[in-house]
């Protein structure tokens, strides 16, 4: 087989640059206890929980830890619809940490005395 595809095209690293404002870099994990306020919206708010849910988490934790804490408090059913079989965020579950949209559970929750985590499930399907 001839070697190509596409060797004739030089990858000019056009897509490897970070998007400008689109990819905010979150700061390094903090020390000490952070009060995490979780705001479930939409169908997640219907689970009978009081908004916001206040969690105390300490030292360099990620969003995954926040969700684990929620699971402990409210049971696995609470996370239903948020995570896929591999335990990752499904694409129509949107999570904002301090107003920034998060794409992976592995991101650290930023430092400060307080962090706001907003979660909403969007409608999955759409034709048209």
């Amino acid at each position: 087989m001839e070697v190509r595809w596409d060797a004739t095209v030089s990858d000019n690293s056009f897509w490897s640059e970070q998007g400008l404002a689109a990819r905010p870099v979150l700061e390094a994990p903090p020390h000490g206890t952070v009060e995490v306020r979780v705001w479930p919206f939409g169908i997640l708010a219907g689970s009978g929980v009081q908004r916001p849910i206040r969690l105390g988490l300490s030292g360099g934790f990620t969003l995954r830890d926040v969700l684990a804490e929620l699971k402990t408090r409210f049971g696995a059913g609470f996370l239903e619809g948020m995570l896929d079989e591999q335990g990752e965020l499904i694409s129509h579950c949107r999570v904002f940490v301090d107003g920034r949209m998060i794409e992976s559970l592995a991101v650290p929750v930023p430092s400060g005395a307080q962090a706001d985590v907003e979660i909403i499930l969007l409608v999955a399907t759409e034709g048209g």
Partner: protein
Amino acid sequence: MNTATPEFAVAADDAWIQSSCSLCYGSCSILAHRVDGVVVKIEGNPDSVVGKGKLCGKGVAGIMTHYDPNRLTKPLRRTNPKKGLGEDPGWKEISWDEALGEIADVLRKVRQDDPRKLVVQRTTTVTAGRTPFQTFAAAFGTPNFSVSGGGQHCGNGAHLISGIMHASWSVVPDFAYCNYAIYFGASKGHAAGHASCSNMGLAADARARGMKMVVVDPMANFAGAKATEWVPLRVGTDAALALSMAHVIVNELDMVDGPYLQARTNCPYLIGPDKRYVRDPESKKPLVWDTVANAARPFSEVAAADMALEGEFFANGFQCEPAFAKLKAHLLKFTPEWAESISTVPAKNIRRLAKEFATEARIGSTIMVDGVTLPYRPVAAVAFRGNQGHMNSTYNFFAVDLLNQLVGAADVVGSCMGFNPASKGFPETGRPHYVPTPDADGLMVTGMWMGYHYPYPPSEPRLPKNLGLQDLFVMGMTSPFLNSIDQEELWQTFEVPYRPEVLMNFGSNLMMAIGNSEVVAKSLERYKFIFSFDLFLTETSQFADIVLPDASYLQSTDSRSNFPFIFSLPGGMGEWCWPIRQEVVPLDGEQRRFAEVLLELADRVGMRADLNAAYNASMNLQAPYRLEGDHAYTYPEICDLELKGNFGPQRGLEWFKEHGLIKWKKQPEEVYWRPFVDVRVPVYWEFMVSMWEKINAICEPRGVNIPQEYYDPLPDFLPCRSHQCQKPGFDFYAFYYRDTIHTNSFTMENPWLDEAAELDPFSYYVAIHAEVGKKKGLRDGQSVWVESESGRKVKGRIRLTQAVHPEGLGIAACAGHWGKGMPVAKGKGVFFNELLELDFAHVSPNNLNLDLCVKVRVTPVEA
């Protein structure tokens, strides 16, 4: 511009306003000329990329829709509690306060009880309705969101597979460079649809340049009329033809783009006897055969050129073959002779078309565009609604795209391409930024999508919680089960724990949009409460409890009249463009804008904080332009934030109202992103194997048979139910096609468009082949009954023509209104959907697409 009209010279108010059309979802950019408060002309906005200053007949005729005296001006409440076909609702005018108060009470109760009992449904015609209604549904907490027609008007197959294979909502030839296009049941560039006006211009330029166009279609109207070669075929057999062409290309001509298949598809992935990837035990990555190391290694560790495409290997304890070898063997059965017997296309033509396509692909060639050297494959096989509106929805579309994949004609110069699947965003802000990315298996995940679940990877089939069962049948997008005759049976079978109670309808005329009216009516009667935002009283709003008078597009403002950018921005080089919609004239009577009504409803229901959060998510609003807490933003304020967030603080709604749109240059790396982004597309749909197992594991114990052949990783030809009809006398395959002059059932009320359709030889007629018709003793213009096997029938007038397959019977558009609320539309054309059964047996068990072809017989109407 009609500025020159002398009588306007003295007008006190004389303004040209930049906005967006809404006569179809193409949402082309317009200039509306307002003189003394009256809209006197609508023209295309030459400054915009969307439509490029041109409009189709529908767009220029929008004035008449706006000024239709049959439009609603006051909220109405029904006084007759009985709902049904032919029941007069006994409308009574009520105040907005009363209407919204009652609706909010209902919504509050149902939200407390179970928010999923609310079904939100919108028309596809108004693209700007998508975000507000979808966002409202998310905030409310219901997953039951549907577009009108349940996929009937466009297609689950077309969109989902365009997403899986091209990371966009639809595919088009790269008109500027393509030399040879094959259309399968598509009309891109010749009629309505995504980027319709822009595509019309681009396709015409391509024809003028000499692009050869082969149109595979049972009827030669629109695209077929402009074809260099029309290839008529038996309705619903596209896959047979496409697979046979693939067979010729692979097995007879051996003209595939090997390096492309190695580097950009999963063709080299080793497939085991269980039809699945053979994976590396540690990394779980699919293995390929490294021809240099002579060993199986994870795909990510082997140079593409070293990956074997053929041969039998032993890896990880399994006898295995590369996916391409599987495909090659699989294709052997689709000989042109076999395909001729299925599709009626002569075998020698199939061989010729395959050869022309593969030859024109110029495999291995490159071209320079704007200083960047790129792969050049100037052929495209494209499909759309007609192709995949069948039981075999998935494979009909997949098989056509396979042709592109085989010769490497996918998202490179001149090839079949998705609309703008990669955008680096506005240079000053880098927004909106999206690009396809690889998943763990190296396969492509789209960067932007209309629904919030991406087409790939598919979600896990589960015991359904959605009324449409798309969470079980995960290849489905929209679903006919919100209205099917067997919905209750299905919900019981699958233990759906709740039932729909409230329907929020935005402009959709579902009674005509999906299937036969009897069954749809029953599904609507079951709702406890329906409220509907409408321009007119439609056949569907007759089932509503409250009807709300909507504003027209000329009275509305939207920060996104379109969807960025995979929906209606033309593909290919040129410019990115974000146009807005803004009001040209004020509201009449008590009409209100739907987006603002939704905000008030959210306040009345007490879910403003949820709605704000949902808007943040759906519009991707980032600080400092996000909605905070439960603050009661107005809709223009939300629009302002979205625009500032995307285009900088100085470019809010006011800036856009003045400028109408913003645009910037596309770069070759965005348009032809394929060589620069390391993703593969699945030519072998391995995911279907486990998908079937999971779906079957849920269905089989419940007595629901899901044929495994619909879930094979490689495409096949699977016949429609109509192909199995043996009933004597039923010898036509009736099919529906889109008319260039009409959008769904909506534009039928526009008297200018109605007039044009009256002049058209086909719009309001039943097209059948002239000789066949004459043999049956049918005359041109004669009134006939078209009757389905199950006895459903519609009346229409015959048009005898040479331009249709002898077994085909073509009916245009979504016509045949019977309601009084749209008097211009009433009685015009033929109501095709009345022939369609609406049940599980008539949908694809793979993607829930309702089959649109029906075996019918034609009998004269007795005088």
